[in-house]
């Protein structure tokens, strides 16, 4: 074993990391250094003293440059000179969690969208563009529902006409008085003929319209709002936040 043995490489490496972690709290720094040391021991097969220099150098190379490790440590805690982390970690959490207004907006959009969207428009936690898109879902489905209701009403009146014509014919042929009980003996085939096509069709349209208009649209709008919720003060912080974890390599 020469004077500059594997242990020297390891302690050089750890010293280098330690120096790069100068501004990290002592407890965290020693935790990282101890973990790195245990890693190196595992990587060279358990015993540093009997490891070959090549194995040690390989293990150190795989660990990465001390700056890389330090960058992760600093990025992970938001320890960046340019963008100090919020003094209170709770503050950071608060920025991301929705307030009562936002929760109300999302929930009510799903249940009763006119009020929900009104709350969403009051809140400043959504971009205007997202508010417009979120409003479009219930509005569009509301229009579809309206269209289906109109179509259903038209269909109802036409089918009603055909039924009455049909029953007049039946009644005239059997010459029975207009007693409801007397209409029952009609064969099922006759009843089927008069109500089949338009009845099932309009019922299907009504269900579809209900699903689209009352559930799908508002629900989609609510989900969209939930997804697009912005952190508090997103406009002033977003750029810094984006790069806070990744300061230039020193």
């Amino acid at each position, binding site marked *: 074993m020469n004077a500059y043995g594997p242990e020297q490489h390891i302690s050089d490496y750890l010293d280098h990391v330690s120096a790069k972690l100068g501004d990290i709290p002592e407890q*965290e720094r020693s935790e990282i250094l101890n973990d790195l040391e245990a890693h190196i021991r595992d990587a060279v097969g358990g015993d540093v003293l009997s490891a070959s220099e090549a194995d040690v150098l390989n293990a150190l190379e795989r660990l990465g440059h001390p700056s890389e490790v330090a960058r992760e440590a600093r990025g992970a805690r938001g320890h960046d000179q340019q963008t100090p982390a919020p003094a209170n970690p709770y503050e950071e959490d608060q920025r991301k969690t929705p307030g009562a207004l936002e929760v109300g907006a999302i929930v009510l959009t799903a249940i009763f969208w006119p009020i929900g969207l009104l709350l969403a428009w009051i809140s400043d936690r959504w971009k205007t563009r997202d508010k417009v898109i979120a409003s479009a879902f219930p509005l569009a489905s509301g229009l579809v529902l309206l269209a289906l209701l109109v179509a259903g009403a038209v269909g109802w009146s036409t089918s009603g006409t055909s039924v009455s014509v049909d029953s007049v014919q039946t009644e005239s042929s059997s010459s029975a008085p207009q007693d409801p009980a007397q209409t029952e003996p009609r064969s099922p085939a006759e009843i089927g003929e008069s109500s089949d096509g338009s009845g099932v069709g309009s019922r299907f349209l009504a269900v579809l319209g209900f699903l689209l208009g009352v559930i799908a649209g508002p629900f989609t709008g609510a989900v969209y709002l939930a997804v697009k919720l912005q952190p508090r003060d997103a406009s002033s912080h977003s750029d810094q936040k984006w790069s806070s974890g990744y300061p230039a390599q020193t």
Partner: protein
Amino acid sequence: MNANGFGTQVKRGVIEFCVLSMLNRREHYGFELVQELSRVDGLLTSEGTIYPLLSRLRRAGLVSPEWRESTSGPPRKYYRLTPEGEHTLDDYRRQWTLIRDAVNTLVSE
């Protein structure tokens, strides 16, 4: 931001997700985590970065370390997921599905 920066940022989040997921299956010590992560190419380029990450996860209460006697050598520090870590992992899974589908939709066009 350059292309390298994009990769670094995405990988950083993905590695955290993977680590929580691995610890959810069973407890691991640091070197085991690194070995598993290194089985896939290009994800963990600097193995040493896992330790600041584990330190942060511990301080956030998502993982908890426990010293165990080792059959060879000194005791090892095993990490396992805390209940809060499980909760966070569930949240990450949901977000991941959402992001993956969104990106697939937008990027494939």
